[in-house]
């Protein structure tokens, strides 16, 4: 039977996701039930897709950045900045399109800032993006003046966070569209190849005529745009911009999603589909923990333990061991087969 390449390449992620979903269903019997309520799909699975939107969006940009051997620590802070910008624009009376354009523009500017530090000044990505990670939340607080900037009376912006379209919550629609766009652009053009090449060997790529600086600028800009989209969703979801908490620590979840998805932090080969699955694995885990009803003191321990197991299972050492076992089993099968033949 022919298995599609994408399935074969992502087998570990598919198995992990399936196991976690089944565990969730055991903990919470109604986990897989989906019903229509208020003309929208409603159920825990939908919650996973919906709540996973910010990390999924961040993971898309993060994957491209990591593929170039970089990292973007600032995405959580960019979410806070963009949320604050969106809230202050809409409360100052700007229309929804103007607000969204302004918010995305700010995210793009943040991304270009990071990209300029990395590509033009050759600052190490972890340091370059740390600057905005630290400063970003302060900038967001300046915009909101330290309070949660609410926009309860702006249904058009709230719709982005909690509205629905074709029975699906808006955040789900948005991340699926962004993901499809990203995958199409990266794989249908030569961008994916050039990004991977820069991650493997930036000098050789430049010497072969790749415009490495422009591509580096572009991936950080895309990461900024993805963070901006996530920031608007996060703010619209709670009808307010919370500069202190929006996107807090989400950069770590996004990096984790990329790693679980099978993209190496050393750069090079990357898989957007893998990262999306990584993000879904993390969110299924979060939702499962909430549904389980353990005392909250155990939340982080459980999460850390399960992620450790996933990473151990995916580690090159255990992959090699499993390949070994498989080979042995085949050898045994062949042997017993030949013995059967001999017996006849």
């Amino acid at each position: 039977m022919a298995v599609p390449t994408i399935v074969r390449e992502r087998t570990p992620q598919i198995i992990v996701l399936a196991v976690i979903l089944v565990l969730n269903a055991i903990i919470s019997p109604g986990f897989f039930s989906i019903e229509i309520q208020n003309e929208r799909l409603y159920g825990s699975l939908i919650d996973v897709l919906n709540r996973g939107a910010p990390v999924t969006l961040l993971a898309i940009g993060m994957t491209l950045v990591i593929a170039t051997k970089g990292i973007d620590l600032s995405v959580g802070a960019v979410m806070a900045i963009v949320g604050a910008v969106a809230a202050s624009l809409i409360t100052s009376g700007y229309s929804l399109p103007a607000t969204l354009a302004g918010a995305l523009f700010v995210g793009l500017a943040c991304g270009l800032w990071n990209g300029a530090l990395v590509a033009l000044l050759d600052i190490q990505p972890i340091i370059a993006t740390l600057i905005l990670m630290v400063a970003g939340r302060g900038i967001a607080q300046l915009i909101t003046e330290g309070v949660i900037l609410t926009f309860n009376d702006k249904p058009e912006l709230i719709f982005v966070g909690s509205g629905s379209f074709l029975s699906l919550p808006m955040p789900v629609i948005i991340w699926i569209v962004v993901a499809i766009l990203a995958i199409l652009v990266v794989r249908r053009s030569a961008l994916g190849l050039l990004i991977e090449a820069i991650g493997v060997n930036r000098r050789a790529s430049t010497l072969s005529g790749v415009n490495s600086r422009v591509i580096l600028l572009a991936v950080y800009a895309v990461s900024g745009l993805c963070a901006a989209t996530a920031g608007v969703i996060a703010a619209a979801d709670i009808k307010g911009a919370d500069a202190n908490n929006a996107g807090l620590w989400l950069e770590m979840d996004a990096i984790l999603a990329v790693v679980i998805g099978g993209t190496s932090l050393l750069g090079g080969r990357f898989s957007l589909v893998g990262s999306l699955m990584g993000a879904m694995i993390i969110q299924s885990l979060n939702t499962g923990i909430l549904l389980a009803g353990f005392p909250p003191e155990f939340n982080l321990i459980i999460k850390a333990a399960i992620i450790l197991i996933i990473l151990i299972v995916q580690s090159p050492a255990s992959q090699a061991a499993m390949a070994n076992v498989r080979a042995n089993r085949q050898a045994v099968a062949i042997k017993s087969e030949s013995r059967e033949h001999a017996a006849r």
Partner: protein
Amino acid sequence: MRTLNLLAATAFATALSVSSAFALTVGFSQIGSESGWRAAETSVTKLEAQKRGIDLKFADAQQKQENQIKAVRSFIAQGVDAILIAPVVATGWDAVLKEAKEAEIPVILLDRTVDAPEDLYLTAVTSDTVFEGKVAGDWLVKEVGDKPCNIVELQGTTGSSPAINRKKGFDEAIAGHDNLKIIRSQTGDFTRTKGKEVMESFIKAEGGGKNICALYAHNDDMAVGAIQAIKEAGLKPGKDILVVSVDAVPDIFQAFVAGEANATVELTPNMAGPAFDALDAYLKDKKEPAKWIQTESKLYTPADDPQKVYDEKKGLGY
């Protein structure tokens, strides 16, 4: 000509010092402005000082203890009559408090206490977070009467003292009322996003929310997030699920107006009022105040003209 000027200047300076002898000068070292409540505390403190004719010297420490210590030393050097500190951390205050004591300047702690010998400060004005939980619990006990009621709880950040204490007080209040039971309790990190996400999972886990009679949230922000989750699940917050929380930030009063929340316990931003009163009594009548002054934990419900309270609170910089 020069002599005249000098004379005039001296006379002016004397006049100034005489006038300031009547009013008090108080230094206030604030942590920063990390939240709306903090901003409100600052503005209430300034208002209270103005009301009493106190000359308030304000210093923002931007979340750093070293800045606070610097500010206190400069207050001592300026010879203020008293110092208010909202300490950013509990430890490391002994030295600077001793300096203030040697200069015979009374120090009053606001909002939080410190790990230092009690004789180094005059008093501490704080809220009782255990009591806040108890007020919330008492309200719910009275509200539901004898009916059975399953409660879900949104805790604050795991391990933080307000989360521990507000849980403790609430548990104490509902103890002995077997019809009230906490069926789920999970942390929402004091944030709206997490409050909403966790409430969604509570609703899913409890038969679409039909088993839930009331929500107790350790702060209003989580309650505001949870109210959205309840609405999106097709239920009516405030009616299908009662909502009680702590803090009394302006946004919860908007929820009162909309009939979507039922009660909140105020964490008052007015720590300075009681502090100034105690200071006044101490300076005028040499009356030593108690080492701990507990602020009022006032219960608000939709019956308290929420729109008016909202407008007032908004004006404080929340």
